[in-house]
């Protein structure tokens, strides 16, 4: 998986499946929170404190978005994290709309075309990619 944020939008590319994604607006905000590392509960609380909407609405949309990211294998969940309980986080001021994960699949056919070569990009050929 490789991702890059540019002007508020994140482009995420799943190297294994050939699918790539665009995360804009609320989705881009949640992604950047996830990229910095957080639990489900922390993400929900941060979203509730940031966006101007009913806390239950934000929580439900955030959890649904998380589940979608997990299903697409864009993130992995470490064991031991509890599902968030709705809580009384403060209400934020940024406009809220349900986060959308835009999915593009037209590159999947190319996955079968080219030999894959793995090179350590920090030092280049002929060094081994450290796993």
């Amino acid at each position, binding site marked *: *998986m*490789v*991702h*890059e944020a*540019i*002007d*508020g*939008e994140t*482009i995420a*590319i799943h*190297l294994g499946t*050939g699918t*790539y994604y*665009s995360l*804009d607006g609320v989705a881009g905000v949640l992604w950047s929170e996830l990229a910095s590392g957080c639990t489900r509960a922390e993400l929900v609380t941060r979203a509730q404190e940031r966006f101007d909407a009913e806390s239950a609405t934000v929580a439900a949309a955030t959890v649904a978005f998380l589940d979608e990211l997990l299903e697409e294998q864009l993130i992995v969940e470490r064991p031991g994290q509890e599902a968030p309980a709705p809580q009384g986080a403060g209400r934020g001021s940024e406009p809220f709309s349900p986060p959308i994960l835009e999915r*593009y699949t*037209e*590159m*999947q056919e*190319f*996955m*079968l*075309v*080219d*030999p*894959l*070569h*793995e*090179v350590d*990009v*920090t*030092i*280049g*050929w*002929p*060094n*081994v*990619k450290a*796993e």
Partner: protein
Amino acid sequence: MSKPSEAELADFLELAEEELATAIASGEALEQNLRFARLDIALTIAGEALAAQLTAPIAARIKPAAGPLHARIGVWAEPSERVLALPWGEEDVGPMGRVRVDGRFIAVHDLGTGTVTLGDRERARILYRVPSWEQLAWWERAAPLRAPLFWALSGPNLHLVHGGAIGDGARGGVLLGGPGGSGKTTTALAGLEAGLRYVADDYLLLDARAARAWNIYGTAKLDADQLARFPALAREVSDAPPPGQKAHYDIARHRPDALVDSLELRAIVIPRVGGGTSVLRALDRAAALRALAPSSVFQLPFDRGAVVGGLAKVVRRLPCFELAVGDDLAELAAMVGDLLDRVGERTPA
């Protein structure tokens, strides 16, 4: 059969070296230094016919070595007798031809074309065996040695990009991005016809830090529609392509002055097949990266997505445009020229 171990691959590489040495000893061999960006690669190809097939598109890259050797590539065709048996079976070949790529020794087997790439990372040595020069796939003749070259050329600031670049020395160049069939080649060749310089229409090396595009191949690939749209170029194409294939137009041979080593990039242009009148409009950066990155990642997945970071670096730095490619090629080229007039003014030192 199971996947070969590191030791088995090491042994196989030695045997392959012997097979290559025998092929070299049994006829003429080409030995040249190739220069890509600032990297020198020593190329040896056994057999005149194979060398002739593989080197025409990279003829402009043949230059005297100017630095330490970055890699040595040896290329030969399978002998007609006593062919070296592969230490793996077809069932061991994974996605993208991977047999083993995670240790010192690597092996990639393209089952479609029968080519085998072997590498020894410690010795910066790459071996590339093809079934025969007569059976080279048309894309291998148009853009030869992609597997060994691309393997060798990926690096920290140098990225293999699926894209084109045209422009000139005074105004710099535009990076043409987007998936196959979007109009990169049409735009690049329209520019060529209008007197712009050419670095690439399909694959290039991007120095992301310097925002500079470097040439790899001196050949453009044209399908039947493009041959009809570029009659002057079509007249210089030696063979009409069979259905489903593309003709290659040898720019180094027919327009040697137009082929340049590199261009400093001043803008990013994402062509889209349009029709009617060509239209150039500003494009937001995220849309530009979305158009540029996936096709490089999935057509040239050699650096595990690091190309995305390199592309993002230039997307952040350069103005981005979408170009609806119209019917009038002169108008299309003029649009790129006008853009270069606008963005290509050099910043005073």
